């Protein structure tokens, strides 16, 4: 059993700091994070494949699988509610994202695939879980909306650039050594299922 530790990290994240993180560690992130879902992932990868640069600095970046509820107050965007979305929808595109960009942390809910675990290991990045639906707590960590890109994709799918303070608690569930909390649990759950069904 590895000792569980708590870390406070500031963006841009450094590979050596991220490589120290283990499954079940708790992290709080401060700095700049980007929200991205299905459509923004697709666009980020398309840009890289065309040799073009995205509108944000991806070096040491944190990608948050989220589509916030926002409102405009006095011409400024405000994040009202911003919990994580289901990460598995991004399973297919994430290895490409990690191949093209030095992303250091992905935050979402529900976990990701073995292919993503391998890509995280290769890149030196981690996947962190944030409690699904804890949207107002997450929004409270957002100090300001720096900017929004790709609003043509719609509010949920746009790339929101958010300044956050102590965003967390984030639970490391997939580390940069290829370990995954989900895979460990899945094996246990599946073996229990067989006995529950009397097979």
């Amino acid at each position, binding site marked *: 059993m590895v000792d569980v530790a708590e870390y406070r990290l500031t963006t841009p994240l450094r590979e050596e700091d991220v490589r120290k993180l283990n499954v*079940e560690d708790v992290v709080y992130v401060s700095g700049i994070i980007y929200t991205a879902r299905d*459509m923004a992932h697709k666009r980020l990868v398309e840009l890289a494949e065309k040799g073009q640069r995205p509108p944000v600095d991806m070096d040491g970046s944190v990608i948050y699988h989220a589509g916030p*509820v926002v409102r405009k107050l006095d011409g400024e965007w405000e994040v*009202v509610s911003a919990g994580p979305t289901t990460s598995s929808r991004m399973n297919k595109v994430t290895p490409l994202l990690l191949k093209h960009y030095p992303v250091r942390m992905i935050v979402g809910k529900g976990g990701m695939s073995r292919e993503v675990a391998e890509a995280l290991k290769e890149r030196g990045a981690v996947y962190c879980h944030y409690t699904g*639906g804890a949207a107002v707590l997450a929004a*409270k960590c957002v100090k300001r909306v720096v900017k929004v890109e790709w609003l043509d994709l*719609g509010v*949920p799918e746009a790339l929101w650039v958010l300044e956050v303070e102590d965003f967390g608690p984030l639970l490391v569930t997939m580390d940069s050594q290829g370990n995954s909390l989900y895979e460990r649990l899945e094996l246990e759950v599946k073996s229990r299922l067989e006995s529950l069904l009397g097979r």
Partner: protein
Amino acid sequence: MLKTSVVEEVALQLIKRASIALPKDVKEALRRAYEEESSKLGKTQLKTILDNVVVAEQMDRPVCQDTGIVSFFIKGRSLDYKAFEEALRRATVRATREVPLRPNAVHPLTRENSGDNTGAHIPGITYIYEDTDYIDLVVVLKGAGSENMSALYMISPGEGVSGVKRAVLETVVRAGGQPCPPIVVNVGVGGTVDLTLKLAKIALTRPLGARHPEEEVARLERELLALINSTGIGPMGVGGKMTALDVKIEYAHCHTASLPVGVNIQCWADRRATARIYPDGSWEILG
């Protein structure tokens, strides 16, 4: 005839309430889950969930950013379908701006967002005939994370009740942490393919802990809940006991050669609000 302006106002208030404050039965079930959970990681998830529920109400903000697709259930008689539909669409548009809700409704092929949570057949409206003078209007907000984990099984009748259990358990296990457990599992058994899923949706409108009136069905609900909470998936899928808050079943007779099972999963944020509208236009929120 009931004024459409009343229906619109009631529907707007229900959407606001449902998006921000969870029903009492759901809050109680979450608190019980927190007390009963023994896994450390799982308990931490439930603590965060409970904190978020409190803060959402304090700050008057949607409890979850996925304010979902809006569905209405109308129970009563002599309903003016057309007028209802127009009032409920207007209420949805207004709620999107006023709460605010996240605009979630997109064209299924072009993915173009309508921007106001309405579109073809959306918000969903289900009319249920009930021989009452008053009308009960229920709104359910349901996110995609849980809806995407739903399933329809057409099992062999020979498999019987154990086949029903298999269908439900396999769906829950396959979903794992993705639909934001502790989940509410709504099951339709029997009927035809459309009806079985509709029944699962109608089960959504029943409060947690309210068992099916027929003992045989109620027993299956309790049994399934115990089985699901023995899988070890736990809150948010990080391991633990509390995988589901409740299981609710509705059934219909089906063809002798078929046994459809529709499993509709709802996340812990089981957002629903109900109002009763009287013939004179007065109304009250029931919860």
